[in-house]
Structures are given as structure tokens and as C-alpha cells.
């Protein structure tokens, strides 16, 4: 595969994208370029728990696209597919600290966990009350005793939205942490890759898939989880993704859920809706009611084709926090 990208210099991908983000969304965010992070334009909001997330770039709109009223106070982009270092995470933590403590929402990838942990140590040493919630919604990893554990993938978006709403309504740090943990404990995700992606500075695909192969159970960098199989019709693939999700929590008859069909970057909306249609059918057959939905490219792997399905078990509290106003570059309603 030849690298064919809208870039200038691979070394400037993140800086130039963040500069563009700043130019486009200056009404919502302000940007620090050195160290690099994106903050809510009105951060820190005095008396409100600050929420900071971050991770490697290449998953946009995660996380910068979710900075704004009702969601994140700051987001820290690392190099493409590489965790940010502790310095910008610490600076973003300062920017988000309105005196009520700061929550770090961290996807369970070793690099992210270690760099956020180091930053949290430094912030704590400076007297900021920092708590961390590790997101691990991915069911593809079977045996978490013998791996680095389940990965944090698209369910992170739902955690960030709902937790952001809890902070916005004035919950204290312990309550905000509890909401984040509650969402993480009730959301399950599994993904599939149809094509690999090319990291700009690498210049070649990060893994190889034959023309007729797909990888079931990918994480958000296309790294494998379960198995490599021949391409199947969409409905069969959806069934493969959904069964382990529903069995894991488990989701049962009578549950109400949010169904989130996420695009990995290179799959068009028309296909995502085909996926959503089948997933909704399967849920209905199981007596599970979809009361909220999200469809689109929210946690991507560069130009990878593929999708992930997330199911979140709702209750009244989570539903009302989901419906609460949000004003970010990528999610916006009620305000």
C-alpha cells in the first residue's frame, strides 16, 4: 500500500491538526501549543471538577473533539498512536483544576496508563486532588489475567459524555468518579477491522490483512484481539461482535440500552447504518430496548475501515446525564 495522505510533513501532523482545530473551534476551546493540549475556553471552571483525558492522536474526534461544556475540560493529544508524555498531561491538569479536583479518564493501554499515572503523581505532589478512572470496555480480550487487561476503546466516548454531565451539574470529585466507574462497568464494546491503517511517520501499514480477510476483536490501533477470518456479510459480522458483548455483562431481557455504532475512520455512514439496523434487530429479539443511540466516526484508527459496537446499560440517572446539554466540536445538543 502506498501512503496517500493529506499531510505536509509526517513530523507536523499533530501540530498542524491541532492548529486547525484551534482555528475552527476557537469559540469552544483554547489551545496550548507547548506543551500541547486543548482546553475548554472557560477553563478552569471554578468549583467544578475538572475532567482531563488524552491519548495518542489518530483517533479523532477522540479526545479533543469532546472538549467543551458538559464534557471534557482538557484533552492531551500524543503523537499518532503514542501516549502523550506526563508534562502536557500535568499542564492540562493545571488548566482544568477549578479547585474541586481533577479526574483523569484513561483508556487502558499500557503507555497511556503509565504516563497519566506519572502525571497524576506530579499533580498530587503539587496539592491537586487527582483521581483516575481506567476505561476497559473492550470484550475482545478474553483472559485479562494473562494480558495487560481489557482495552479502553469506543465506550470511552460514552464515559466522557456522561461523566462530563455529572461534573457540569456540580457533583463533587467522589461522585464524578463514581459516575465514570458506573458507566465503565456497564458498557461493553467489540470492533472489527476490514483494512489496516498507515501511521504517517511509519509510512507503511501497521499490520497486513489479505483482500478477503477481516480482523475480529481489534483495539483502536488495529491491534488484534480474537481472530482473523474471511469477509462475511454485514449481518454475520454484527452477530459475531454483538454476541460476546451481550453475554459478557450480561445484557438481559428488559434492559434499556444506548447502542453506539462507531466507525473506525474509513467506513462510510451508509454501512454504519446497516450495522446499526442488524444490531437493533438482535437486541430487540433478546427483549432489550434501545432508547438512545449514537452513530458515526467518534473513536477512529486513522483511515482504517471497520466498526465497533458498544452497548451501554442505561438507568434513569445515566439517561438524564446522556441527555444533558453538551457543546463540543464533535457532540453538541441541548445548548
Amino acid at each position, binding site marked *: 500500500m502506498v501512503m496517500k495522505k493529506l499531510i505536509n510533513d509526517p513530523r507536523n501532523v499533530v501540530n498542524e491538526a491541532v492548529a486547525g482545530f484551534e482555528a475552527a473551534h476557537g469559540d469552544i476551546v483554547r489551545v496550548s501549543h507547548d506543551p500541547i493540549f486543548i482546553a475548554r475556553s472557560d477553563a478552569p471552571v471554578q468549583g467544578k471538577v475538572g475532567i482531563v483525558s488524552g491519548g495518542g492522536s489518530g483517533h479523532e474526534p477522540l479526545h479533543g473533539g469532546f472538549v467543551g461544556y458538559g464534557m471534557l475540560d482538557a484533552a492531551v493529544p500524543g*503523537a499518532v*498512536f*503514542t501516549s502523550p508524555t506526563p508534562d502536557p498531561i500535568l499542564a492540562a491538569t493545571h488548566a482544568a483544576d477549578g479547585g474541586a479536583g481533577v479526574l483523569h479518564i484513561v483508556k487502558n*493501554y499500557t*503507555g497511556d496508563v503509565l*504516563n497519566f499515572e506519572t502525571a497524576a503523581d506530579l499533580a498530587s505532589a503539587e496539592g491537586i486532588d487527582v483521581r483516575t478512572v481506567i476505561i476497559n470496555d473492550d470484550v475482545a480480550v478474553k483472559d485479562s489475567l494473562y494480558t495487560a487487561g481489557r482495552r479502553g476503546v469506543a465506550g470511552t466516548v460514552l464515559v466522557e459524555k456522561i461523566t462530563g454531565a455529572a461534573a457540569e451539574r456540580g457533583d463533587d470529585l467522589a461522585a464524578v468518579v463514581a459516575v465514570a466507574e458506573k458507566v465503565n462497568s456497564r458498557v461493553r464494546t467489540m470492533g472489527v477491522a476490514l483494512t489496516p491503517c498507515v501511521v504517517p511517520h511509519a509510512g507503511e501499514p*501497521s499490520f497486513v490483512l489479505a483482500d478477503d480477510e477481516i480482523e475480529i476483536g481489534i483495539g483502536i490501533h488495529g491491534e488484534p484481539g480474537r481472530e482473523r477470518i474471511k469477509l462475511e456479510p454485514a449481518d454475520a459480522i454484527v452477530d459475531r461482535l454483538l454476541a460476546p458483548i451481550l453475554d459478557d455483562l450480561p445484557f438481559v431481557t428488559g434492559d434499556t440500552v444506548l447502542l453506539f455504532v462507531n466507525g473506525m475512520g474509513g467506513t462510510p455512514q451508509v454501512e454504519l447504518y446497516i450495522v446499526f439496523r442488524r444490531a437493533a434487530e438482535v437486541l430487540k429479539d433478546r427483549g432489550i430496548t434501545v432508547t438512545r443511540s449514537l452513530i458515526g466516526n467518534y473513536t477512529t484508527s486513522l483511515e482504517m475501515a471497520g466498526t465497533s459496537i458498544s452497548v451501554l446499560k442505561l438507568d434513569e440517572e445515566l439517561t438524564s446525564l446522556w441527555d444533558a446539554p453538551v457543546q463540543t466540536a464533535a457532540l453538541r445538543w441541548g445548548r
Partner: protein
Amino acid sequence: MTPKEQPDAGANLSNTAGGGALTLDTAWTVRWIRQSAEVLAASRAALNTLDRDIGDGDHGENMDRGFQAILPKLEQLADETTPGAVLKLVATTLISTVGGAAGPLYGTAFLKAAGAVGSAMSLDATALVALLTAARDGIVLRGKAEEGDKTMIDAWTPAVNAAEAAQATGSAVAGVLLAAADAAASGAQATEPLVARKGRASYLGERAIGHRDPGSQSTSLLLRAAADVTAA
């Protein structure tokens, strides 16, 4: 004499010349880090390839970026800089420039190594073993990996054990470092048949078998660089 003025001129000649070198000094520490930067730059693509097989393909890139960022700082060391201060400079630079898992892991290793040698102006074989042990312990603390998990610990722990054994049987610093480097190289090679239990390679399950852990390889390179700049 400062490391800046005499980077490669054997500033510690009285210590490391001949077969009976007893101690290592600040100039040695600087030489080790410079040699490491050179070796990592030369191994950038090879480490990326190892990482692409079972990770995300950027380990060489990240290590090279981190060690290159240290080089200009080595030019500005004060006269009275201790080996520990150099190690601490390496630590903070790696933590703030490498990213991924390797940044905090190697950063913590150098930070703990700096703590272990304290303000000593020179390191004997005993101090050297303490340095290596503290580095290894820091990585275990941060990464929570055990031997056999297919991580850099599989190079570090054999290296620490070999260094201890060499020191116990009376080897001088060069012998200790050579033993550590040889054991790290064997340890890195021995990760090839393993299934990974930590880091991103752990998601591959049995598909990680047959591939060397890139972190164990970079550890092996760092310890080889230490041995190579230490005259026997």
C-alpha cells in the same frame, strides 16, 4: 575538567585505564549515554520493525527521539555534576520526550538509578550493582511485569543477577558491565518463544511467539553500550 570540554578524552583515565579499573565517574556516565544515543539511532529501524511485529511499530522512533533530546543537555553540564545528576537528567528527559510505555519505564529506571548512587562522585562495582538493581526495581514498580512476561524485565533481571554474581566473585566495574550486557542479550533473545502477558503484545496471544520483545532489545543495547565504553 568538565564532560563538556573533554567528552571523549577519557576524563577518568586514572580510574578506568588498565585491567583493574575500580570506579566509574561522571565522564563515564556521559560516555555511556552518548554511546547509547548513537546505538539507538543506528537501531531505530530495527527496533521499529520488532515493535511492528508485536506492538505498534514506534519503539525505535520513540527511543531515538528521547536519547537525541538528551545530547544537547549533556553539553551544558556544570563542572561539579555527579553521575547521579546525569542519570537524573536522562530520566526527566526520557519521561518528557519518549511517550508510550517506554518513556515512563526507562524514565523511572534512570530516576531510581540516580537515587541509588546518590551524590557519589565515583561508582565502584558495588555501587554499579546497586544502580542496575534500582533501575530494574523501578521498572517493575511502574510496569508491574514479572520475569517471563515478555517485557524488558526479561533482559533487566538476568543482567542484574549476572552483575551481582560478577561483583561477588571480585570482578571490577568492566567485568560487572560485561556480565550484565551478555546476560541482557541472552535475556532479550530468550523472549522470542514467549507469549506476552504485559503491554500491547499481550493481545496477540500465541501470535507473539517467535518475535523478540522490542523493550528487551533496547535494554540489551543500553547495557551493551555501557560495557563498550568501559575499558577492561
